[in-house]
């Protein structure tokens, strides 16, 4: 069973109920609704965006927000709103892909470390603890510096920056679960290690990991934006929230909207992700399990 199958399987009645409950609160509805809307916007960007994101019009450069350019234009006269809409595509897909990779790798590593223990666990955790104490931006920067700028390296850089988090969390869950009586009881029924790992340990460990993954997508968006801001992420003319702000710094005084709106997009998205994640944590009642990991 691969990770995504496992994730789907873990969404059994129990978890579905919880996600429903996350939507039950006012904050949950607003935050969750916004996120769904954002995903739709990203998917249908070509139909929603009023202008071509790459169309330059130097005659209309640095136009203030108004009609027809609702959020103004940048120094090449490109429509900021259209670029923000297409930027959602880049930011969301890069972050989500990166976190999915990070989660899959982290869960495998963490589960193996937690389940097998011993020297293997100690080796993995030493490396993981070490990277964990370094700022994520630094880890991502070094990685991008090594393999060069671009969206692919940004994706992997984000994945590596959050690998430690998922490994630690998964391992902590597995170690905690291994001590539960039902694991010993199932072993005593004559269960094979694979049954213990796939039917009990992983399904029970996965909920907090998925929630943290969801929260990490928010962090990933910020990290992608930061790398983009340094000019290390999306390369022109691909629109990304970070890259837009990077090219906008020069025009900070002239046309602040070029910076403000992509930033607002990042901030609002990340806040929505956090609020919804918080509701999920509450609905799943796993706050205690996220402590100390």
């Amino acid at each position: 069973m691969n990770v995504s199958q496992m994730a789907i399987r873990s969404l059994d009645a129990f978890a579905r109920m919880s996600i429903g409950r996350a939507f039950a609160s006012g904050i949950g509805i607003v935050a969750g609704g916004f996120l769904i809307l954002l995903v739709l916007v990203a998917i249908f960007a070509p139909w929603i965006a009023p202008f071509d994101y790459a169309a330059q019009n130097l005659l209309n450069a640095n136009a203030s927000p108004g009609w027809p350019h609702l959020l103004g234009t940048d120094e090449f006269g490109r429509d900021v709103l259209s670029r923000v809409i297409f930027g959602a595509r880049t930011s969301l897909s890069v972050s989500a892909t990166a976190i999915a990779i990070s989660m899959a790798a982290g869960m495998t590593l963490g589960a193996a470390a937690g389940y097998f223990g011993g020297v293997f666990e100690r080796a993995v955790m030493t490396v993981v603890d070490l990277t964990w104490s370094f700022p994520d931006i630094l880890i991502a920067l070094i990685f991008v510096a090594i393999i060069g700028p671009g969206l692919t390296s940004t994706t992997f850089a984000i994945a590596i920056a959050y690998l430690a988090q998922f490994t630690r969390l998964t391992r902590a869950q597995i170690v905690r679960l291994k001590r539960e009586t039902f694991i010993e009881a199932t072993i005593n029924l004559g269960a094979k290690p694979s049954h213990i790992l796939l039917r009990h340990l992983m399904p029970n460990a996965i909920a907090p990991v998925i929630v943290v993954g969801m929260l990490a997508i928010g962090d990933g968006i910020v990290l992608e934006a930061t790398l983009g801001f340094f000019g290390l992420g999306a390369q022109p003319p691909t629109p990304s929230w970070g890259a837009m702000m990077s090219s906008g710094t020069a025009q900070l005084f002239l046309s602040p909207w070029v910076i403000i709106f992509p930033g607002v997009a990042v901030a609002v998205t990340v806040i929505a992700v956090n609020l919804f994640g918080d509701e999920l944590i509450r609905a799943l009642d796993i706050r205690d399990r996220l402590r100390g990991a």
Partner: protein
Amino acid sequence: MILRYTFMRLLMLIPVSFSISVVIFMIVYLLPGDPIDNLLRVGSSAEDRAELVARYGLDRNLIVQYFVWIGNMFRGEFGEAIVLRRPVADLVAQNLPYSLTLGGLAFLFSSTVGMALGTISAVVRHPVLDRFMRGFILLGSTVPGFWLALLLILFFSVNLGWFPVSGAGGWTSLVLPVLTIGFGGVALVARVTRVALLDAQREDFVTLLHAKGLSSGTILLRHLMPHALLPVVTILALRIGWILGGAVTVEFVFGRPGLGSLLIRALGQRDYPVVQACLLMLALAVMLGTLIGDVAQASMDPRIREKKT
């Protein structure tokens, strides 16, 4: 007891620093292309190349090379910057004080304000204050630092003209960078303090403290705070590395000199001796941070003191 613990903890740093230095050393070899080219400026002559090879023993095997390199590092010889054409040690020495000032002030700001806010919100438990705190913490931990920096510049420097837009002249140039870094830090520290205090309040022994007839104030100051400080100290210690390394973006936006901006420029220019030196310094800061955190924790908690020694 605490001395013994510190000594043990220092011993444990040896393998850690060894592995970090190996990783940093290996960077030039992991890069695409010839490692020697990575250390030479473009258009260097064959003599330059031969000299470099001789100096670092680059013709010998990796293990020997590592020891030559680390030996140089210990003597403070970080090599020659490729692009800036100056000794790397000079560059580091020039930039480090800026990083330390900014980092130190941001650290002080975020720890004092964060702990105060966290304590107030845990003790007062007023719904409006609660909502405000949660909003603040959410903003502080989600808004990207560089964007906040840009907004602050736009508002305070451009519109109000209170502080300089960039540079590192005088104390006014420190206000906005410290605020930017501090904002996230304050939110984080406040959250940890709040959670830790609320947790401590739920401990069994607190009931008995009240049953002894102690006042709530005494219990808070003498018993709850020390407990709440344990996780706060861990976070603060981690922050030391984060503030020095994570200041990259803020230094960059405000155009301040410092390790972070040195690193980012060196990365952009592929100036690897500088990159290695910066990373080594930052790693040192991170390790020092965790060391200080662990020792501080041990000095507060007798259980940790005994476990490790």
